[in-house]
C-alpha cells in the first residue's frame, strides 16, 4: 500500500471522528425540531453555556463575579473549592433543566401557534441572550475543561499500524478523545432510541411529534413534554459541550459549531435521528477528504464552506434530505 493511500485512510478515519462530534450537536436540533417544530438555533450556545457552567461549578467560580465586583466594589472571584467532575456534571444538568423550564415558561409558551420563522427568530434571540448571559456569569476568557477524559494521540494504534506503510509512514494518528467521543455518541443514540421507544414519556414525546392536537386530546401535557424535550436537548448540548470543550477549550467559538451542524441537518433531514448521525459522518469525511485532495490547489481552508455547498448541491436533488419525511404540499 502506498503511503499516500494510507494518509488518505487516516484522513477518512479522522473525518469520521469529527463527523461524530458534528452529529452530537445535530442530534440536539433534531430532538427539538421533531417534538415542537422549532428550529432551535440556540443549540450551539446551549452547548457553550453548559460547558462554561460545568467549568465554573468545578472550579468553584462565583457566578456574575465581574458584575458584582464592578457594582459593589468588592473583589470576589472563587468560593475556593473544587467539585469532582461527576457531581459537577449532575449540577450542570440541573441548571440545564432549569434553563429548559425557563425557556418554556418565559418564551415558547407565549409563542404557541406562531409561524415557524417567528419561532426560529426567537431562538436566535435566545442565542444572543444566552451568549451574553454566560459571559456575564462566568467571564469570557478561554477556559480549560478537564473532566478526566483521555486525550492525545493513541500510541497503541500508531504502533500497531506503523508496519502497514513504507519508510515515511509512522502509523495512524488518532486522538483518544475522538474514540471516546464516538463511543459516547453511540451510547447516547442508543439511549435516546430506548428512551423514545420504551418509556411512557418517550412515547408521549413521539406522539407530540406526530400530531400536537391528537396528542393533546389523549391527555398528553404539551407543557411537560416541551420542558422534557428542551431538557433532553440541554443534556445533549452538555455532552457536546464537554467533548468540544475538552478538545479545544471552552470559548466563544464553541457556539459556532451550531452553524457546522446545520449542513449536517440538511443532509440528514431535520426529522431523522439516524439522519443526523449519517449526515454528520458524510460531512466530516467529505470536508476532510476535500481539504486533503483539493484544498492545496484551491488555497486551503475549504472546510469553512465545503459542508454548506455539499448540502446545497445535495438538496437540489433531494429537497427533504436523506432520511427526512417526504414533503407533501397541498393547497
Amino acid at each position: 500500500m502506498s503511503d499516500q493511500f494510507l494518509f488518505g485512510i487516516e484522513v477518512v478515519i479522522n473525518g469520521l471522528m469529527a463527523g461524530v462530534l458534528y452529529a452530537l450537536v445535530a442530534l440536539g436540533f433534531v430532538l427539538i425540531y421533531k417534538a415542537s417544530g422549532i428550529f432551535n438555533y440556540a443549540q450551539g450556545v446551549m452547548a457553550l453555556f453548559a460547558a462554561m457552567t460545568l467549568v465554573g461549578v468545578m472550579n468553584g467560580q462565583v457566578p456574575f463575579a465581574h458584575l458584582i465586583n464592578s457594582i459593589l466594589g468588592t473583589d470576589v472571584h472563587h468560593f475556593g473549592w473544587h467539585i469532582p467532575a461527576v457531581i459537577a456534571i449532575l449540577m450542570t444538568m440541573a441548571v440545564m433543566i432549569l434553563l429548559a423550564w425557563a425557556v418554556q415558561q418565559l418564551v415558547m409558551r407565549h409563542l404557541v401557534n406562531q409561524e415557524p420563522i417567528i419561532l426560529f427568530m426567537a431562538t436566535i434571540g435566545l442565542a444572543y441572550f444566552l451568549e451574553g448571559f454566560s459571559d456575564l456569569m462566568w467571564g469570557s476568557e478561554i477556559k480549560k475543561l478537564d473532566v478526566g477524559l483521555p486525550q492525545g494521540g493513541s500510541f497503541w494504534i500508531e504502533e500497531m499500524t506503523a508496519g502497514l506503510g513504507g519508510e515515511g509512514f509512522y502509523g495512524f494518528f488518532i486522538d483518544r478523545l475522538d474514540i471516546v467521543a464516538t463511543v459516547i455518541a453511540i451510547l447516547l443514540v442508543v439511549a435516546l432510541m430506548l428512551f423514545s421507544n420504551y418509556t411512557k414519556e418517550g412515547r408521549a414525546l413521539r406522539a407530540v411529534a406526530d400530531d400536537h392536537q391528537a396528542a393533546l386530546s389523549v391527555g398528553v401535557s404539551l407543557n411537560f413534554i416541551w420542558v422534557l424535550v428542551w431538557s433532553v436537548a440541554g443534556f445533549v448540548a452538555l455532552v457536546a459541550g464537554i467533548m468540544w470543550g475538552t478538545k479545544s477549550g471552552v470559548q466563544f467559538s464553541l457556539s459556532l459549531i451550531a452553524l457546522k451542524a446545520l449542513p449536517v441537518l440538511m443532509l440528514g433531514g431535520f426529522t431523522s435521528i439516524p439522519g443526523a448521525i449519517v449526515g454528520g459522518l458524510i460531512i466530516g469525511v467529505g470536508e476532510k477528504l476535500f481539504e486533503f485532495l483539493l484544498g492545496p490547489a484551491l488555497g486551503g481552508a475549504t472546510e469553512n464552506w465545503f459542508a454548506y455547498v455539499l448540502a446545497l448541491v445535495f438538496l437540489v436533488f433531494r429537497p427533504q434530505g436523506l432520511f427526512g419525511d417526504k414533503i407533501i404540499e397541498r393547497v
Partner: protein
Amino acid sequence: MFYREAGDFSTTYPEDSQTFPIKFDRYRYYVVLAFAFLVVPFIINDYWANAILLPFLIYAIAAIGLNILTGYCGQVSLGTGGFMAVGAYSCYKFMTAFPDLSMFINVLLAGVVTAAVGVLFGLPSLRIKGFYLAVATLAAQFFLVWLFNRVPWFYNYSASGQINAPERTVLGVAVTGPNTSAWAAYLFCLVFCVASAIVARNLTRGSIGRKWMAIRDMDIAAEIIGVNPMKAKLTAFAISSFFVGISGALFFALYLGAVEVGEAFSIQKSFLILFMVIIGGLGSIFGSFAGAAFLVVLPVAMKIVGADMLGMPTDIVAHLQLVVVGALIIVFLILEPHGIAQLWRLAKEKLRLWPFPH
C-alpha cells in the same frame, strides 16, 4: 385631532392610488424629506455621521433589500453578509479599474453585479423551501467570504488582504477617501437610501410585488393561479441583492473606508440585518427604516448609559448589550410579531379616533 382624513377627497385614480393618499401623511413625508436634505447636511458633524446617520442609512438600504426577499417573497436568507461583501468588492474593483468613473455609477454597477450573484444563489430556491433554503443561503455566506479572502485578485494583491477605498468624487466633491466631509458622505447615502425606498415601495405595490406576496403566502396556490414561481423568486433575489449590494458598497466605501472581509461581512452581519427586518416588520418598507434605526441607536445608547453614565467596564457593557438585544428580540416577537411597523399602524388607527374613540 392631529391625524384626520375627513375632507380629504380623491378625485382621480392616480390621486387615490398614490403612496400616501392621506394629506397629513403626505405632508409629514415631505417635511421629513426636506429636513433630511436641507437641514441635516448643515448641522451634521463627524460623530453623528459615523456613529448614527451613515450606518442607519446604509443598513436601511440592506434591510429594504432583505425585506423584499424575506418579507414580501417569503424566502428566508442568511446570506446577506455575503452579498454585501460582493457589493463591496465589486465596487472596489470598479473604483480601481476605472478611476475616472463617478462614484455614483460605481455603486450602481456594484449593485448590478450583486444582483447577478444573487440570482445564481437564488436558483436552488426553486427546489428548496423554508428552513432548508435558509440554511442553503449560508452556503453563499461562507463561500463568498472565503472567496474574497483567498483569491488575491479581488483585493488587488494588497499585502494586508484588506481593501481600501481610494478617493472618488461625485460632481467634483469627494465622497470616499480620507478627505471626505461628513455632509458629502451623508448626502450621497441619503440619495441612495431615498431612491431605494421609493423604488422598493413602488415595486412592492405593483404587479410584481403582488406576485411575490402570492408566492410568500402559498407558492403552490400561486403557481396554480398563473404566477410563474421561477420568475417571481428570481426577480425577488435579483432586486433584493441589488439593494443589498448597494448597501455593501456604501458600507465599505463611505462608512468603513477599509475592509477585511471576514470581519466586516461575517455571518453576524447577516443576522443583524435579519433582526432589523424582523423587529421593524416583515413586509413593510417603513419597518426596514424603523428596524435599522432601532438596532443602530440601541448599542450607542447602551454604551452612553452603561459606560459613560454608570461607569461600568466596557466588557460588561458589551455582554449586557447581547443580553438586552436578545431579550428585546424575544419580547418583541411575543408582544408584536409584526414589528414596529405594526405598532405604528396601530398608533395611527388610535390617533385617527383620538380623543373620542367611541
